[in-house]
């Protein structure tokens, strides 16, 4: 299925916003995206007055695998070991949506044409929403890189932004995927070893606190994210349920010849509005709550990774100290041991300093993002709760929330509309 999106800044559903740095000397956005059979092509547009670039404005077309390549390049770069690497965007996944559309297409003869049209509309909206979200995730990734004073200067980043040709980065084959999987296992085993290593004392309270905090926080936010997803699914289910109810009520209304006719029609109309409402509630909760939780779940994982790297550096430092002591007692290769120890010490201190800064940034970023999204969530929920079905008067501006009295007016109209 093909889909295009002309992504202007206004219609981005992103719950994560990235405040550009003061100078805005590097602005990145995804100006267009096309969804083809099994891949999405993003058009990355850069506006920059940095001397490094050949032009001030240029765009390239990138696919998801190239984003992953960029992310991995950052992670593997020792220079950035003391920084939180922005989490990689998730792979665009239209499978579920596509399946549902196909099932609908195969047809269930029991549903009426109107019902079919509505369901198709719902599924298409869902597809579009997923599409928009994946664009937003990829965009946020790039924007965070562009906003970070150190990360934005990376050579690979420039290549990614500027190089007109395909980066020839194929997706990871099975061996690489397995390798990545094993590396993760090794990492967690290593982490366990380090933490249980005797003599390894955390010298800094700040980091001790951060570690305990992040471990617990990550687990809990992952939980919350999963459950928020389920709530969103339930809302969607409910919205879908209203379709056949509304249709059945309409046909009941057409059959009746008595006072129930208007009542049934009104109720059918009400359920139709409820359906749209539930759909909007579902998508708002998805954006403002689920997505935010999901993003910070990944971000907190990135922060955990940073802590691990620092811990590793600390362990190396400790080991270097021990080696130096041993060398001194044996009075052999003291020079190498000394220089190694100094190297480790400098590395560790460098990491600690930048990690501290990064973690504080992480906290403030998190707090402001939660604040923004929770406020928006509450406002949207209020807006939806206040919207009510119009009475018999067709509303001229259906989007504006009307007072709750309309509901009651509707009820009283049902009452009098069919008096004895």
């Amino acid at each position, binding site marked *: 299925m093909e889909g295009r999106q002309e992504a202007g800044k206004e219609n981005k559903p992103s719950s994560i916003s990235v405040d550009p740095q003061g100078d805005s000397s590097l602005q990145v956005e995804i100006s267009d995206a096309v969804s083809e059979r099994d891949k999405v092509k993003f058009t990355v547009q850069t506006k920059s007055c940095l001397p490094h670039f050949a032009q001030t404005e240029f765009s390239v077309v990138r696919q998801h695998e190239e984003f992953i390549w960029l992310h991995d390049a950052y992670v593997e770069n020792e220079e950035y070991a003391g920084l939180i690497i922005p989490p990689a965007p998730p792979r665009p996944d239209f499978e579920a949506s596509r399946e549902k559309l196909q099932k609908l297409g195969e047809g269930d003869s029991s549903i009426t044409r109107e019902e079919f049209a509505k369901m198709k509309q719902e599924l298409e909206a869902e597809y579009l929403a997923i599409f928009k979200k994946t664009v937003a995730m990829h965009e946020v990734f790039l924007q965070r890189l562009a906003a970070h004073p150190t990360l934005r200067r990376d050579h690979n980043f420039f290549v990614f932004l500027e190089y007109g040709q395909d980066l020839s980065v194929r997706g990871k084959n099975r061996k690489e995927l397995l390798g990545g999987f094993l590396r993760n296992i090794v990492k967690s085993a290593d982490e366990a070893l380090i933490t249980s290593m005797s003599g390894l004392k955390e010298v800094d309270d700040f980091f001790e*606190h951060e570690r305990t*905090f992040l471990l*617990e*926080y990550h687990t*809990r*936010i992952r*939980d*919350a994210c999963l*459950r*928020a997803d*389920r*709530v969103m*699914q*339930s*809302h969607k*289910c*409910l919205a879908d*349920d*209203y379709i*056949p*109810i509304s249709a*059945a*009520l309409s*046909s*009941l209304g057409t*059959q009746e010849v*008595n*006072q*129930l006719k208007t*009542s049934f029609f009104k*109720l059918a109309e*009400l359920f139709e509005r*409820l359906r749209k409402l539930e759909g909007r509630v579902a998508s708002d909760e998805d954006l403002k709550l689920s997505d935010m939780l999901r993003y910070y779940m990944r971000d907190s994982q990135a922060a955990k990774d940073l802590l691990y790297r620092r811990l590793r550096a600390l362990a190396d430092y400790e080991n270097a100290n021990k080696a130096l002591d041993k060398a001194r007692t044996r009075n052999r290769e003291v020079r190498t041991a000394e220089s190694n120890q100094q190297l480790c010490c400098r590395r560790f201190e460098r990491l600690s300093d930048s990690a501290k800064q990064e973690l504080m940034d992480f*906290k403030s970023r*998190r*707090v402001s993002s*939660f*604040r923004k999204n*929770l*406020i928006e*969530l*509450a*406002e949207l*929920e*209020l807006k939806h*709760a*206040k919207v*009510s079905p119009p009475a018999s008067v067709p509303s001229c501006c259906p989007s504006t929330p009307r007072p*709750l009295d309309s*509901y*009651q007016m*509707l*009820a009283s109209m*049902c*009452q009098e509309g*069919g008096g*004895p």
Partner: protein
Amino acid sequence: MAAEREPPPLGDGKPTDFEELEDGEDLFTSTVSTLESSPSSPEPASLPAEDVSTNSNGRKPAEVVLDDDREDLFAEATEEVSLDSPEREPILSSEPSPAVTPVTPTTLIAPRMESKSISAPVIFDRSREEIEEEANGDVFDIEIGVSDPEKVGDGMNAYMAYRVTTKTSLSMFSKSEFSVKRRFSDFLGLHSKLASKYLHVGYIVPPAPEKSIVGMTKVKVGKEDSSSTEFVEKRRAALERYLQRTVKHPTLLQDPDLRQFLESSELPRAVNTQALSGAGILRMVNKAADAVNKMTIKMNESDAWFEEKQQQFENLDQQLRKLHASVEALVCHRKELSANTAAFAKSAAMLGNSEDHTALSRALSQLAEVEEKIDQLHQEQAFADFYMFSELLSDYIRLIAAVKGVFDHRMKCWQKWEDAQITLLKKRETEAKMMVANKPDKIQQAKNEIREWEAKVQQGERDFEQISKTIRKEVGRFEAKRVKDFKTVIIKYLESLVQTQQQLIKYWEAFLPEAKAIA
């Protein structure tokens, strides 16, 4: 007796006129709204008897019963009375009443009067009331409640006993407020009795709630979980609605079985309602036989009204079934939403706990609280969805099945009439043959048979007319009730939705400042 039987002043509904008729008849001073229950009427029965005489009909069961139990005899007579009352209007318009002959001779009724003198005048009064209330639908001053489900016994012999409370000012009951304990099979027994008496003459008898082996087994086994409490509550509400519907039917309210059910403390155990009993199997066989017969009867419908109505009910049935299935899905999903919201609330609370930024932590805890309250809301809404909407639909699906049954009975009645006519024809042919063959003794026999079958044909025609008339009335009443029921429920349901929205607004409005307070 006869002298006193002046035609009551039909149509003006003034009870006071009766005073002139009787000897200080207290009961007739009671107006529509204040039906007294003072049992001091010496000879009230004359009036009902009068009604009976003007338009009684071929209610064969009544005749049969007259020969049997004396109590029921009177009861049947009173049924006759109320039976007439809905038909008062056609009589008022001085149409030639349908070809009916007064079947129940007043002499038979008269001796009974003393024993049950209380009921008759009240009934008559109520029939008066019925005339007045006819336009507004049936309104009787009786209220039934089913409450306090209690488990009696243990193991597989356990059962739930429900308290049936009646509040009434009708004088046919000995008290104005009383309650009895009944079990589910008692309700089924009541329904089967009423159905056997009234269904085949065209009355729409409200169906009883359905059995549920699974549900009951869980209760018997003693599982004290939410699903079995839900099951008991669902059943209790269904039984209450069933009784309310039954007593709102003017004819059924007169029935002594119904009165016995509501009043007497001990009720003979209705074993015939068990699914695996002999009676149960017989019922199933009969149902199958009926289904086959229905297919073979080809009725010449002379009245388009019936065909139209049957089609209408068939459509309505289909639509309601579809809607019901969708609403059940809605209820299920709303319950899921509620469960998921509760789970999310918990994890949001946990997240708030681990958050080290104080303001954000507080906001997250508040969010958790809001979500918990919303979960409650969803549960209540699901409850409303179910008990208002879904159960109404399933009740009406079963009621429409009863309506269809009544139409089928009419068909059977017609078939009987047809058969009688055919047999009469055959007997006439036989007579003609005998005339030709000149066999005097056989001729006499043939003539006798012809007379017999002529009577049967007449009876058949009368029955058919009667059932058709009853059905018309019943369907009218049913439709009016249906419109009222649906409208009431729709309004109540809308109100529940409004309530939910208002609560949501309150909750989110309380949360918003907390979110804004995150520094």
